């Protein structure tokens, strides 16, 4: 790089030696955006911190609230962003979200066959397997076999509904509330909901096992 970019480089968080081409490119892009006044270094830092704070626990909190509050569940179905705002989650970004409620007869599972679309704005980055060619190609073709490999064996009377996130919506699965969880607090209920439940490759843990 030329001396021209020094203004951005002085905020550079570390050495450039040994960076992958993508990491090097993102460093240069960030430096240029700062230099041209599009973003400040502080804005970038705050956005990185916000991204790293997102976690499946946020999704678990949303699910637990839906389990205990039928009015919240109804709103979550109709207007995801308005519902999650009530539990302090901001879903007002560019993509729309939709909650997919599992029922006695329908089990939902989410995939993105084209790339790796995922409800990142709510629950952070996807696991590596979600981005694998095997998961992406097999989940639409043989969903039951894929779910079985995750240890989820569904009875034949349950319909598996695979949602391919091909466009402008992102999906969060709301698993069924497990039996035996009647006396639990909202916080205890949230602990039964793993990241895999929110993708649909698992069901909520039973209170005994948790």
């Amino acid at each position, binding site marked *: 790089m030329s001396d021209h970019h020094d203004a951005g480089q002085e905020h550079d968080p570390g050495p450039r030696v040994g960076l992958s081409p993508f990491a090097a490119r993102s460093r240069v892009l960030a430096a240029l955006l700062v230099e041209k006044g599009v973003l400040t270094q502080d804005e970038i830092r705050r956005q990185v911190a916000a991204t790293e704070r997102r976690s499946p626990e946020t999704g678990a909190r949303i699910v637990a609230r839906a389990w205990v509050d039928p009015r919240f569940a109804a709103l979550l179905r109709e207007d995801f962003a308005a519902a999650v705002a009530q539990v302090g989650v901001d879903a007002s970004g560019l993509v729309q979200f939709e909650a997919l409620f599992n029922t006695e007869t329908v089990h939902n599972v989410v995939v993105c066959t084209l790339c790796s679309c995922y409800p990142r704005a709510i629950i952070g980055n996807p696991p590596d397997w979600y981005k694998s060619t095997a998961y992406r190609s097999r989940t639409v073709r043989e969903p039951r076999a894929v779910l079985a490999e995750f240890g989820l064996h569904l009875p034949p009377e349950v*319909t*598996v509904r695979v949602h391919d996130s091909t466009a402008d919506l992102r999906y969060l699965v709301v698993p069924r509330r497990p039996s035996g969880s009647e006396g639990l607090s909202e916080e205890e209920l949230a602990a039964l909901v793993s990241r895999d439940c929110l993708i649909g490759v698992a069901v909520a843990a039973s209170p005994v096992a948790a």
Partner: protein
Amino acid sequence: MAVRPSPLAVGVGVRVRTTGPSGHVRTPGYLRGASGTVVALLGRFPNPERLAYGAPAPLVALYRVEFAVTDVFGPADGASRDVVTADIYEHWLEEVQDRE
């Protein structure tokens, strides 16, 4: 591309077009030519096939279409009732009049 004068109704049978523009396309290859059913109108969004290139991107209707897994991939062991849904822009869908 002409915009459909009236929206496709929920429950209508549709077939996914087999041809389309090259480049950034949000209609998966495995669904090209497949027949399914409209289950929801999701709204209108800037056409991603143009948006991806910074071109003026008119709003196009986005539908959720449901397909039987066996219709798309052929008969499988015991998965006859399982379905795949995908979100597909209107210009990829043609209405099917005579469904079996």
